[in-house]
């Protein structure tokens, strides 16, 4: 090792190992989340209002 290298390492605390680790990284873990599908949006005829929730239950006849 040359003198200037020694100086650099002494001053910074950066070890060759830190640099070599950065240059030889292990592969990151895979992250998985699949796209979902929202149920089709129903357009109320007339009102033109987006219906995102199920219709309010109505009392059954009889």
């Amino acid at each position, binding site marked *: 090792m*040359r003198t*200037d*290298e020694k100086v*650099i390492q002494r*001053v*910074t*605390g*950066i*070890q*060759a190992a*830190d*640099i*070599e*680790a*950065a*240059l*030889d*990284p292990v*592969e*990151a*873990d*895979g*992250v*998985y989340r699949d796209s979902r599908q929202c149920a089709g949006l129903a357009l109320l005829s007339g009102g033109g209002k987006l219906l995102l929730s199920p219709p309010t239950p109505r009392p059954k006849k009889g």
Partner: protein
Amino acid sequence: MEQSGTSTRLQAAVQDLASGVVSALRGGDHAHVVPPAGTDGEAGDLALAAVRVLGADALLPGLLSHTPPDPAELAVFRKAVEAYPPRPDAAPTVRWSHWAMARTLRRADPSSAEPPAEPDTAWLDGATWQVLTHQLAVLAPLALPGEDCAVHRLAQHRPVDVARGFVRAVRRRDWRQAAGAGRWLTLLPGVPDTVGLESGLDFVELMGGQDPLVALQVQAARRMRMGARG
């Protein structure tokens, strides 16, 4: 995995440096990418180590725009090459990264020392397409137009495998690997058209471009594609 304080600071310095390279690649202004020499103390040393980690890409803007490097910049680059030679037991990517820097230095300044002999590619002989792509992505600074080295020749024989690795990296949301693989794909003949590289690079930038190391590879890939067409 917990990182040491030094390693965290080093990563931050690499990101800063990469941001500068990205701006230079985007705007054509490549001033002050590499910090001026003579910055004393820890900050300067950290910056020097960051140049070593970013490797040959620290001079990429000038290289792609065929602009001679600023002498001060070149001096720092040279200092990084000389200060951090690979240790005898260093991993192949470390040795290749250093070789690429020495080679870039020699190209930028023919009065520099001859680059050392090329390391070998034995570690990639028979590598699966997954390992191959990961290693090539780490060695993305070697993906340059007109480059002729053993890693380049090896990659040229496996375009479909690198394309598969790109798909895998996007699926795993490993944007750095995807960006590095995408940069290689711009150079390799025989990549299936169905990979959709152009929209793929846009997608990787959209998803991972906040990371300057991702943005750098995407930007480099775009510049090289433009160069190839122009």
